[in-house]
């Protein structure tokens, strides 16, 4: 391991030697300062609680585990005696509705959705288009509940249902719900509710301003706002720029190592050539890792401080981006060993990345077209087959991005919002996405190791 860490440290020196990484770090800090200037002011609970409770008409069957959305029928939820203390909100919840409706809703919530139906969900027009399209969203049909099942619903079930509703719609866990004893009115029941951290929760509407309050942007929900910042700006634009810069900078590492007069110095030391190359490869990942730590770690920290919403899962973007770069860097390494040219490594790596991006985009588009009942246009069958095949056999560059988007969504959006989003995107599996990319990394590195081991000098 001593040699491994020695080469890692050597790569670190090499990575921080040029001015480019400092330019990137300055840009990152600049972006973080902009994030730091965002101000989130929670809207008053008196105004927002009724809106929140109106969304309780939707629930996730199977105790919140189902992939579809169901809805309560004939049940109303109202708040009174609202108190706010910091981010915490306390209030009295009144559940009212038709006879036994609440019990039936809770009983339905406990059961899996047996039948579903597809509802048309309007999709905003794409850039350059004006017409809305529709998309199928799967809804649970009213879940049949027998009289016995309704009667079997206990007070504990009701409390669990309510806690789940707050988790699903507000993203708040550890909700305290206590049934208020008293004369049981079949049409009205009251609960004391304590929502810790509600006003900094992902679904709570906020007044957003930038540059420390100097420019007011308006009311936004916290979660979707953070989702856009994290997914589109940090993990989208920021990560894209970081990847391109990292490919260009690190493309010189291997050619520098194997150039005449340099390689001899290293391979005359007691270290195998393949070992040297693999260690150097990992060393090259340091560049993107450093940028990722600053970008993602910094964004997470700054947005957490400014919004009060902490989502540790977002930090997964650091290894995810490093892994994405690992795929590109394995190509760069392979090309560099075969050609000894940094320029060739840059051109072929970025070219390959572009091909993967195009295939990923085409696959996404193809999936969207196939999901539409009446798509505005159709591709020939061979085009779908070709895209599916290419997507199947090539590294899942785009899918890694989609997976990170999903992780970001899980940390920022509510379950119901995610169910709606899931309907609009096809999220790939972790195993095949990471596995296939890993297989390509191994393939490219094996080729590079073979070439370096068999060449003279």
């Amino acid at each position: 391991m001593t040699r491994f860490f020695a080469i890692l440290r050597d790569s670190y020196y090499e990575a921080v030697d040029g001015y480019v990484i400092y330019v990137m770090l300055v840009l990152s800090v600049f972006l973080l300062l902009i994030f730091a200037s965002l101000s989130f002011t929670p809207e008053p609970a008196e105004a927002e609680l009724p809106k929140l409770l109106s969304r309780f008409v939707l629930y996730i069957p199977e105790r919140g585990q189902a992939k579809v959305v169901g809805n309560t029928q004939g049940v109303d939820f109202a708040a009174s005696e609202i108190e706010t203390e910091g981010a915490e909100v306390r209030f009295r919840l009144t559940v009212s509705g038709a006879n036994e409706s609440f019990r039936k809703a809770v009983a339905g919530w406990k059961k899996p959705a047996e039948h579903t139906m597809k509802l048309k969900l309007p999709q905003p027009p794409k850039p350059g288009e004006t017409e809305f399209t529709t998309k199928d969203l799967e809804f649970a049909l009213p879940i049949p509940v027998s009289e016995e099942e309704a009667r079997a619903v206990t007070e504990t079930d009701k409390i669990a249902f309510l806690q789940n509703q707050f988790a699903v719609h507000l993203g708040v866990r550890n909700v305290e719900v206590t049934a208020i004893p008293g004369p049981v009115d079949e049409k009205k029941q009251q609960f004391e509710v304590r929502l810790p951290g509600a006003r900094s929760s992902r679904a709570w509407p906020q007044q957003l301003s930038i540059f420390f309050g100097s420019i007011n942007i308006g009311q936004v929900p916290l979660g979707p706002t953070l989702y856009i910042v994290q997914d589109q700006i940090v993990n989208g634009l920021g990560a894209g720029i970081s990847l391109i810069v990292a490919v260009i900078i690190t493309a010189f590492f291997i050619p520098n190592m194997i150039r005449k007069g340099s390689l001899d110095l290293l391979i005359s030391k007691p270290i195998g050539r393949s070992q040297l190359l693999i260690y150097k490869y990992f060393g090259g990942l340091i560049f993107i890792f450093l940028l990722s730590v600053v970008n993602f770690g910094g964004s997470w920290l700054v947005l957490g401080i400014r919004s009060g919403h902490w989502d540790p899962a977002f930090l997964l973007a650091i290894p995810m981006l490093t892994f994405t770069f690992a795929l590109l860097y394995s190509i760069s390494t392979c090309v560099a060993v075969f050609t000894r040219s940094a320029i060739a490594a840059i051109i072929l790596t970025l070219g390959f990345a572009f091909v993967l991006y195009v295939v990923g985009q085409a696959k996404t588009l193809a999936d969207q077209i196939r999901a539409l009942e009446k798509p505005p246009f159709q591709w020939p069958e061979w085009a779908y087959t070709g895209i599916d095949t290419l997507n199947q056999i090539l590294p899942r560059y785009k899918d890694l991005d989609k997976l990170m988007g999903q992780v970001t969504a899980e940390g920022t959006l509510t379950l119901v919002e995610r169910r709606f989003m899931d309907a609009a995107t096809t999220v790939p599996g972790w195993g095949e996405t990471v596995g296939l990319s890993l297989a390509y990394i191994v393939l490219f590195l094996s080729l590079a190791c073979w070439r370096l081991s068999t060449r003279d000098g």
Partner: protein
Amino acid sequence: MPVVSTRELRKQYGRIEALAGVTLAVEPGMIYGLLGQNGAGKSTLVKILLGIVHKTAGEAEVLGEPAGSVAVRRRIGYLPEDHQFPGYHTAASLLDFYGQLYGLTRDERRKRAAEALEVVGLAKRKDSRIRQYSKGMKQRLGIAQAFFHDPEVIFLDEPTDGVDPVGRKEIRNLLVQLRQEGRTIFINSHLLGEVEQISDQVAIMHRGQLIRTGRVADLTRQANRYAIGLAPGQVFPVEAIEALGFTVTAVGDRHEVEIPEGASIDTVLETLHAAGLSLRHLVETKQSLEDVFVKIVDRSDGSEAPRATRIARPMEPLRQSGRNE
């Protein structure tokens, strides 16, 4: 047991035969000079011994193990020709990095790197970036990295390349010191004069073959040729000596006498004595390694013609210029 040995070592680059069956043995504790023109195969031989180049056929061992194995590389040091150190390192950080590759502990690395840099005269610049170094400083650093980890065998390819005369002398002294410590030093060099001064044994390579090996003193000795000097004012009897069958050549205020086969210098001395002349100087003459090298290479090429008449650009006097190209 030799520390370096090869048997019928061959290396083929396509149609070009870089090594055509090289067999050699280097004994421990000596400075071994490998001489040859550009393209003679010197660097290829060393690179095979270090595992940098793969052999085509034959055998090569270093320190009793197959040449190029990781175990061997731990025990040897190497300074390649035209080396390029990463410019982002300092001398200290580079030796620390290499020390880690050699498996030295932190304390060993610090101690040995400091000592080595002191020895090569880089102690004051050890924290400067290598990209700021002159060629001579890089060469000194190259030598430091070749011996700082206490290797048993050190391979040096043009070790004094780019170093000023004072620095060259320091490097020669260092190599002699390393030999005295029991290390074996294998030098590839064009600088025949320097190799001549410090090598115990030399080998001359030409067109991928070893065409002559031997001790420097043996190679440069000119049998049956003496330089004779007489007392001031006395005239050397050239005609009388030549009449006896000797060849006489005036060299400054002395004369060189070549003794023919079967004759003896005693005949010349007796003649001088009989003529009442007083002998002040009598030395068996030697030729320079450069002369030996040129003669051997020319002979190997099948020509005894003077080299300067056969090449477009005459070779500079090697001892003065320090290079033959």
